[in-house]
């Protein structure tokens, strides 16, 4: 298993960005801006934790943006039916698990390629939602829905703790649980893992279901920030999530990567957009710059892989 090369280079990039900002735009580090930044990227982070596991098993899930939108609407609709916010939130997470389980079952047991399955569910869920809501947003939410019924000051602390707890738990589990080992083995060499007695289908199914659950949780935590829930939320979210995971050093071919890398990837890609605005660069450059970072990450990965192959073949 490779050491922390990628994590260090992403961390160094973040540090460099922070230094530049500290000199040129110290306003970037105001508490308000950082809190905004965190809240805006929290859904990306939570879903990226699940996506890391999906990519580690050698699969991909591009339906996360659509699942995010559906779960947000489900949470809002249940809250309007009079359910307490915790029950509405739990309902949205169950909806996420169900959608993730459908993806997982089709990939793991029907053995269809994950890119095809999740492309289909992405479109089906997105257009199904459009049809169901007729494009209308959910508004007139009950007052306790806002900020989960907490104050606007307590809420960010709560979700910061939630995000850190989930990241730490998944990182720890991947490293220390037999199931985490199975996830790496499945993505690194599925047939060897199967022959070694690992139920590769079960783990593939499970990581998709977990990703659905995290999309649900992210949708609930995000929707309580606003007084309306859009029916077109999460457009393009899957790209942000996948980009963060790849920039964080998880091999798109599976079997290698870490949660720490993903967290750093989310921070780098999330921080760089607003930084441009603060530095007076047109925001139109944001996506181009993000694209360049992703490309650099993929090229670095390819070079690393080639170097490693040479070492192996010489040995």
């Amino acid at each position, binding site marked *: *298993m490779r050491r922390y090369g990628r994590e260090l280079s992403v961390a160094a990039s973040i540090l460099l960005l922070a230094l530049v900002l500290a000199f040129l735009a110290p306003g970037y580090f105001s508490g308000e801006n950082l809190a905004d930044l965190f809240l805006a990227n929290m859904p990306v982070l939570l879903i990226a934790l699940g996506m890391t596991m999906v990519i580690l098993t050698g699969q991909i899930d591009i339906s996360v943006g659509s699942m995010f939108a559906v779960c947000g609407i489900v949470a809002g609709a249940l809250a309007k039916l009079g359910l307490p916010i915790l029950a509405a939130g739990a309902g949205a997470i169950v909806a996420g698990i169900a959608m993730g389980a459908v993806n997982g079952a089709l990939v793991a047991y029907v053995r269809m390629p994950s890119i095809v399955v999740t492309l289909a569910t992405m479109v089906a869920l997105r257009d199904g939602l459009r049809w169901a809501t007729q494009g209308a947003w959910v508004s007139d939410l009950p007052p306790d829905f806002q900020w989960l019924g907490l104050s606007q000051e307590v809420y960010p602390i709560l979700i910061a703790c939630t995000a850190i707890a989930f990241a730490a738990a998944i990182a720890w589990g991947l490293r220390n649980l*037999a199931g985490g*080992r199975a996830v790496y083995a499945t993505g*690194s*060499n599925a047939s*060897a*893992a199967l022959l*070694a007695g*690992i*139920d590769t289908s079960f783990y593939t199914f499970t990581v998709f279901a977990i990703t659905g659950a995290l999309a649900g949780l992210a949708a609930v935590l995000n929707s309580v920030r606003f007084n309306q829930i859009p029916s077109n939320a999460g457009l393009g979210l899957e790209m942000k999530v996948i980009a963060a995971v790849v920039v964080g050093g998880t091999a798109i071919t599976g079997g290698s990567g870490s949660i720490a890398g993903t967290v750093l990837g989310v921070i780098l890609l999330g921080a760089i957009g607003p930084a441009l605005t603060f530095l007076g660069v047109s925001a139109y450059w944001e996506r181009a710059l993000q694209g360049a970072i992703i490309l650099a990450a993929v090229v670095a990965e390819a070079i690393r892989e080639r170097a490693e192959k040479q070492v192996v073949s010489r040995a």
Partner: protein
Amino acid sequence: MFGLTPPDAGEIVLSGEPAQIGSPADAIAHGIGYVPEDRRQHGVVLELPIAANISLSSLDRVSRHGLIDGAEEDALAQQYVDRLRVKTPSVSAAAGTLSGGNQQKVALARWLATDPKVLILDEPTQGVDVGSKSEIHSIMMDLAASGMAIVMISSELPEVLGMSDRVMVMKSGTIAGELSRAEATQEKILNLALGHAV
């Protein structure tokens, strides 16, 4: 036999008991191990450390309630690395850094760690250097002497003749004949394999 493809016919009898085997996990539970032919494709997981490769089929032995005990895992791996004389500086090195013969030993170690009653070895010395090859042969002899049933699949005649107590010759997926150690000669095996009368 290892539960990868559903059987066409026949039954598996282990120590007098018929066994139902529907997956590799079932086979392991019944004490059957299988070291596959193509170790790069199906044997070792190159990106994982040697220790993780060795413990992969016996994770319940080094973990409690699904929680892996790293020290115990390393100790288990070190035990087999020493016993099979795998040439590596450390059990935490990636399996991909090893030579072919040592990778094959790691694949073998994974199965020995499950403490199998029956060990199936598919072309165990193909593409392995001469030194490792004779080492693997002597390990197989030791295991057989200690009471393990070993099924070796090999297309290398000298190996078959040198190692076997009983030779089953297969031709296009069916058993063409059975020879005892005393009867088995290169000529007889080839005759059966090619379908001539003995």
